[in-house]
């Protein structure tokens, strides 16, 4: 009897240990590349292979375009930083449980890290408080030597709670250093496949429209409220759907008329037949990347200065996967990390893996750009966000 007991116990304990260790383990390809020597970013114009603007299931060969990137001029400091990362095991803390876009993007990024730095990267899932737990720990207890990175959903795990002055926030988003972000995309209005609305005029004539949304503080909820206001629609918000899939189903079965989401989602759900094949309008200042013929909302209405600020609060709160470091990491290490990010995201194999998951490859946002966006968001007065909340309450009938 006891031999079976012993065997069971050994099996359970060993698999438990493996399970404990496994989420941290990231596939580490055999590294043959030598460490890349990189300098702090001195802006220079260089010709590089850039990610294609839009790629469907099979990515097209990457076109060669001219971009502005940091110039890789080796300096003694840069060599030191490269050596630091060559010997270092960097930790990528993911703000959510395994599974989902942030986790997947981080694991894929980590698998390319050795190729471009010579070092190793492990992924650790640190879920809690809708992503706040990880951001808080980055601010309070993460090492400042550049060996700890964070990955989160830009909107819900970092910027949103900070802007809304959530009492749980223990960080200042302006103090983090941003490495870059992926999966950034434009938003549009998806209309249920069977709903009789094909033009802006149809929407304006309709009475009692219902637009679904995720939680109250979601960026898409803000965008929907802005849409209703700018177009002057007779519409209300139905808040509380658990995810995009639930919204698609609700739109498909006519429970709601539509919802605001990223254009890759609209394409995917349109192909399945739950929503119309293309968004009715982009809630953007530009036309779609994937749907180039779909007009931007600013082509329909000329926003007043007040509306421009409203639009800003919506546009700056997009969903994307952002990588960042704790405060006080030295500038040369931040520069190295940003360069590594740029190289990884320009790699065709990386693009392929991201394309497979997201449906299209959306060019990444650089760390410097992210820092600017955060600074711009931080400059918007709190009263403005309160006004958006009031607007949401008004349309949700709260």
């Amino acid at each position, binding site marked *: 009897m006891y031999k079976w007991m012993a065997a069971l116990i050994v099996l359970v304990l060993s698999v438990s240990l493996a399970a404990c260790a496994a989420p941290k383990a990231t596939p580490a390809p055999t590294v043959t590349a030598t460490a890349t020597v990189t300098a702090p970013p001195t802006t220079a114009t260089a010709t590089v292979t850039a990610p294609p603007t839009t790629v469907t299931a099979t990515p097209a060969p990457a076109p060669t375009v001219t971009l502005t990137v940091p110039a890789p001029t080796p300096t003694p400091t840069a060599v030191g930083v490269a050596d630091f990362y060559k010997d270092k095991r960097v930790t990528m803390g993911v703000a959510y449980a395994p*599974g989902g876009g942030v986790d997947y993007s981080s694991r894929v990024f980590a698998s390319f890290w050795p190729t471009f730095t010579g070092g190793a990267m492990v992924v650790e899932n640190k879920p*809690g408080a809708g992503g706040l737990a990880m951001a808080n720990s980055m601010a309070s207890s993460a090492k400042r030597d550049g060996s700890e990175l964070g990955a989160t959903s830009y909107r819900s795990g970092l910027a949103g709670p900070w802007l809304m002055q959530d009492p749980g926030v223990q960080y200042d988003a302006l103090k983090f250093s941003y490495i870059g972000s992926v999966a950034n995309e434009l938003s549009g209005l998806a209309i249920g496949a069977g709903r009789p609305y094909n033009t802006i005029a149809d929407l304006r004539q309709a009475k009692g429209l219902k637009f679904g949304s995720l939680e109250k503080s979601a960026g898409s909820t803000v965008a929907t409220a802005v849409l209703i206001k700018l177009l002057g629609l007779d519409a209300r918000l139905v808040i509380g759907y658990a995810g995009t899939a639930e919204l698609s189903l609700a739109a498909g079965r006519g*429970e709601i008329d539509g919802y605001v989401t990223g254009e890759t989602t609209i394409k995917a759900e349109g192909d399945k037949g739950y929503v119309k094949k293309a968004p009715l309008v982009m809630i953007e200042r530009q036309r779609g990347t994937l749907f180039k013929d779909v007009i931007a909302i600013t082509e329909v209405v000329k926003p007043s200065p007040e509306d421009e600020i409203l639009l800003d609060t919506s546009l700056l709160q997009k969903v994307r996967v952002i990588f960042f470091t704790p405060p006080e990491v030295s500038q040369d290490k931040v520069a190295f990390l940003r360069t590594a990010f740029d190289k990884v995201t320009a790699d065709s194999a990386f693009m392929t893996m991201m394309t497979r998951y997201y449906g299209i490859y959306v060019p990444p946002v650089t760390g410097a750009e992210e820092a600017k966006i955060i600074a711009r968001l931080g400059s918007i007065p709190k009263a403005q966000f309160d006004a958006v909340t009031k607007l949401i309450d008004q349309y949700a009938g709260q």
Partner: protein
Amino acid sequence: MEAWLQALQNYTDLAFVGWVLAGGIGGLIFGIIPGISGMTLVVLFLPFVLDMKPEYALGFITATAGASMTGGSVTAILLNVPGTTVNAATLLDGYPMTKKGQAGRALGAAVTASALGGILAVFLAFAMVPLILPMVMAMRSADMVFLILMGLTFIGVLGTGAMIKGLISGGVGLLISFIGYQSITGMQRFTFGSTYLYDGLPIMPVILGLFALPEVIDLAAKGGTIAQTRAVIKGMTQVIEGAKDVFRHWGLWFRSTVIGYIIGVIPGIGAATSIWVAYGQAKQISKHPEKFGTGTVEGVIAPESSNNATQAGALLTTVALGIPGSAEHAVVLGAFLILGVTAGPTLMMQHLDLPLTLFFAIIAGNLIGGILCFWTAQHLAKIGNVPSRILVPLVTVMVLAGAFVMREQFNDVIVTLIFGALGFGMRRLGFNAPALLVGYVLGSLFEQYWFIAIQVSGPTFFMRPISLGIIAVTVLVLTSGPIRSLVQQLFKKGAKGT
């Protein structure tokens, strides 16, 4: 026909069979370990699938999902520690059976009901492929409210007496479910400024604390073995007896499987609801409801056939509609995307061979999980006879590690300990821990759909044929027991009169 042949042909490919086998065994092992499930294995597997043949990767994933829940019942029955959250209802009668020295029988029944439930669900799916889309599209948020309410109403019948204490326990569970971020109002509730509570209390530590720790305390205090009757376990006799029980109660097994399947194909609800609906109807319709909770095999068959069927149903919704059948299946859908396969109606219409291959993989996963568990059950059942001095420290470590491993947060261990104390107190004072769990698990789901239904259709949102139908079925199931007793009394009186 060509698609069927193509699907079956995949099973002549040894590499494919190897991946399905690996998935089945992996899912079973990950299902047995408290705190993680087969989906954990799927997540860890995702970054490696890019260069694989879609059939291999998806065969592995679906077999993993198919076998995971079968494994979860093992520790629920033997140690009062559910391997996965959807094995929670199995605790109610599975562990008391172990105490009675009938662990082998309980395992035999659970494994057989699970595996056959999962397999029947696939055949239901084959038959219902043309109906899935209209069925899912017909269900609105209002209908979800009453489906979840059906699970909640069974709070009142879960206990073995003391209805008021059962309702109080369920009410406390509902209150606990309201902790955290309320997505509709955008408010944090009952968090007391702690970010740990922002996401609400994590389910696995709550279950482990509420059920496993009080049992460990009892076992440590009493000494001896779990099995209070030291049954002589000879070979497969007990296990086979358990399997036969499933066939003896084939009506219950069939009903619970169909309930599991239907709830599984409806996105957004999942096995958390189906196990309680299956258990509740089993008790209400049973000729001897008073035996439920004391170690009756029907209380094992109902939730176990239901949870595997739910899993299969949810997986089929994911494949056939491209809509994740449950939160876990979002990961499976992610795997489809990575492999360049667009799940959904188009796949069903244009490449039916792949969905059929995967349906067969679910059957394979259930068979692998079932056969392995069945084969080892006679030995596993002997755990009931292991002295407490060996078992108590091992189970304590297993419970606390299980609470920690899911999110690697020490606070989860503290929650387990707190709920352990609560569970122990409730047991001593005669309150009802399962009712608390049902309230906790279904409370937030109920609230979510309730608010959406109100926003969409106003206060008369229930005036829909499907909602009214579900309400009628709930009332019928709840009143069937009392009505039957009333009729029997009337007949007795009539007989005496004549």
